[in-house]
């Protein structure tokens, strides 16, 4: 592993956080899941042999950890019920824009996150990996699907998101 662990987290920390956000709506649980993911990635990087890109490799680990996390949450509150109304204003819309535009984009993002979290795990995974810029081949590798299957799942996931958007 040529790239240091801390460099990897500096480069892909935001990416890992978005994975956590796609599985958890509640702030505290998001942070908890992010920490769990980071530990799993840390352990996994020691075994990285360079068969794929670092990004694909850590996304694979992150999603696996998130799936485990979702299954482990059965004893706790159904986190989907949290559905934050307030996402926070620190990250999104960093450029100077009118308050109306900011509010509108903030609402769009809230709706997007809600819709993504409502998807079945496989569709959610395929869609978010696609939104992170992974190719069909890379998504297939992460999810353990065929390229064609990725196309089908992605199309359905996008349709589902669009339907949610049009309902709003």
């Amino acid at each position, binding site marked *: 592993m040529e790239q240091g662990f801390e460099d990897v987290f500096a480069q892909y920390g935001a990416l890992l956080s978005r994975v956590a956000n796609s599985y958890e709506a509640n702030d505290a649980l998001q942070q908890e899941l992010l920490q769990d993911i980071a*530990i799993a990635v840390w352990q996994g990087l020691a075994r990285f042999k360079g068969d794929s890109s670092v990004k694909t490799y850590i996304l*694979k680990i992150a999603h696996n950890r998130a*799936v485990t996390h979702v299954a482990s949450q*059965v004893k706790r509150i159904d986190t989907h019920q949290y559905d934050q109304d307030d996402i926070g204003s*620190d*990250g*999104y819309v*960093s450029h100077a824009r009118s308050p109306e535009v900011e509010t509108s984009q903030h609402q769009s993002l809230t709706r997007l996150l809600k819709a993504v979290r409502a998807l079945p795990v496989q569709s959610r995974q395929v869609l978010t990996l696609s939104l992170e810029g992974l190719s069909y081949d890379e998504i297939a590798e*992460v999810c353990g699907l065929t390229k064609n299957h990725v196309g089908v799942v992605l199309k359905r996931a996008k349709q589902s998101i669009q339907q949610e958007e049009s309902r709003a």
Partner: protein
Amino acid sequence: MHNKVDKESEENNETSDLSTMWQAQPVNEIDMSAMKKNLSSERKKQRLFIIIDSIALFPALFMLYYFWGELTTAAKIIHVVMVVTAVPLLIYQLWLRRIAAFYRDSDTADHLQKFTKQVKNNIRIAFITKHSAWMALAILLAFIAERLLFGELSPEKITRLYVILGPTSIVMSVWYVWANRRQKRFEKQFATLEKMARDA
């Protein structure tokens, strides 16, 4: 033809917008110091479990080795039955833990399959643990009964046996409840994983 191109272009734009919005969402920072601390405590916990699993049989083996000559036939039978039952049980538990112990990074479909199998194994481990609690107490009771019936014990030794029985009963009862809760939790996890597989 133009319509098809326009539609594709529109779809690509929508995906690009979605992607931009997705990547612009607020993110949390990884707490590196907490992570290093967690990693270290997790390793310690796993090592502790392995040590506890491995040394669980030592007291019985110690008793057999050092007090074999002093034990009555009934006590010898109880101890031998206990060891003969416990050894395969321990091997089986270690076998059930193999998936977690030898886990390698795999795709999510494979991970889900392995994780489901591990949770299924955890249900079995919890089931074995739960029933080993009352079985251990039953063995202890049998041992005490044997001592009382055939041991020709002094009142002091009888009191000592009851002193051993009291805390052991409490510990085994707590153990039973703890294992039962674990079993229920893993059963719920298993149901969630099966639902995930069905929804996929």
